[in-house]
């Protein structure tokens, strides 16, 4: 089945079976930032944004994504404030979970530009990091939020 979507603002035709996930279809299309870890939606490693909202791509049957706007980290601008903050704070180790965290953080800041630490942690709680970069991830999101606020002022 051919499924028309937009990924990082570009029209993309995904080739997929009806019983395959969006995760598998995106990887087949070359978006390797989207990865499989748990396969049951609990770890957040496969997070993509669909129309701006974080979704577990391992739980979406590919045809259900037709016509939607999907965001992956391959589409990040070099000066994306969340990505830059992660870089500066060194908020990652092996990197496998990092795209999921970055996208979740972007969605959080789009919805809540001035999140408290508790709000940051609640928003990130569904993303697992086995390497244990949580403290620095929280710091990076806080830094990105502060900067975005200063920019918009």
């Amino acid at each position, binding site marked *: 089945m051919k499924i028309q979507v937009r990924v990082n603002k570009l029209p993309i035709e995904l080739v997929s079976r*009806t019983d395959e*996930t969006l995760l598998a279809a995106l990887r087949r299309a070359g978006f390797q930032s989207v990865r499989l870890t748990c396969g049951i*939606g609990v770890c957040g490693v496969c997070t993509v944004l669909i129309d701006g909202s*974080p979704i577990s791509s*391992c*739980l*979406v*049957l590919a045809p*259900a994504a037709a016509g939607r706007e999907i965001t992956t980290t391959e589409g990040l601008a070099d000066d994306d404030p969340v990505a830059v903050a992660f870089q500066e704070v060194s908020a990652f180790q092996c990197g496998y979970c990092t795209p999921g965290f970055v996208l979740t953080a972007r969605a959080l800041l789009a919805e809540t530009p001035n999140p408290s630490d508790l709000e940051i942690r609640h928003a990130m709680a569904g993303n697992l990091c086995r390497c244990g970069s949580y403290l620095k991830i929280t710091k990076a999101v806080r830094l990105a939020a502060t900067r975005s606020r200063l920019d918009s002022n």
Partner: protein
Amino acid sequence: MIEEPEWHSPSTLDEAIALKSRLGEAGVVVAGGTFTGILVANGLIKPKAFIHLAKVQGLDGIDVGEELRLGALTTHRRVELSPSIRQSSWSCVADCFGLVASPRIRNQATVGGVLCDADYASDPPTLLVALGARVRLRGRAGEREMQVADFIRDHYQTALGADELLLEVVIPQPPVHVKYVKFLSRSSEDRPCVGVAVAADIDEGGLCRSLRVVVGAVSGRPQEFPEACGVALGERMTIDIANEIGRRYSDLTPTLSDVRGSAAYRRRLIAVLVRRSLEPLAA
């Protein structure tokens, strides 16, 4: 090559119902798709066809009126964040849906889905039972309503007919005091080990006019024992009464063992958590 399932995207309810009737067990309904996604991706089911409901009009809505009506395709996240629900007497419903899993799951999973899945380790069904919520179903023969308490029969088992779809959940005006507590025995990201919903009406004299206590996530379906609450009716809530109701629920509720706790641990927790849920009413 292994044949792939048909993908149907009906745009009307009638079309969807007709498809479901025709396909029977060979067809799998996809609402938000979280549960279906897990089953299919992990090879647990191999359906002949999918019936994707996203394009069906009229199933996705929040109507705050004399009763709260939630369309079946409304996501958990929309309920959680809805300003109209949060500002209404049903804000406890928004809170409860907001406790489920993670924001990602809540962005995808639907009100209809969580009820039709009838997974025992869920939060919303417990509260919905305590609020006397009803489901509206439609099949080839027409529409019917039933209490959520009767709709959910057991773990993964509902009263949904083979040709029926769930249209909406209808929640009557809640009493003044409503609280849902999700008890976690392990990680903050865990599913509930025990869920306790309390819905109580206390009159101006401080007497308890109605009391419903529902315990979830401990058995195949939410558990309620109205006779155990009788001791509170017409009385002021006290710590002793709260204790007594907790103890009775602990004795009466059948509990199961799973990764989150043994049956014995759950029995112990029920007494504690029911008491703790009722104690604020004694203030």
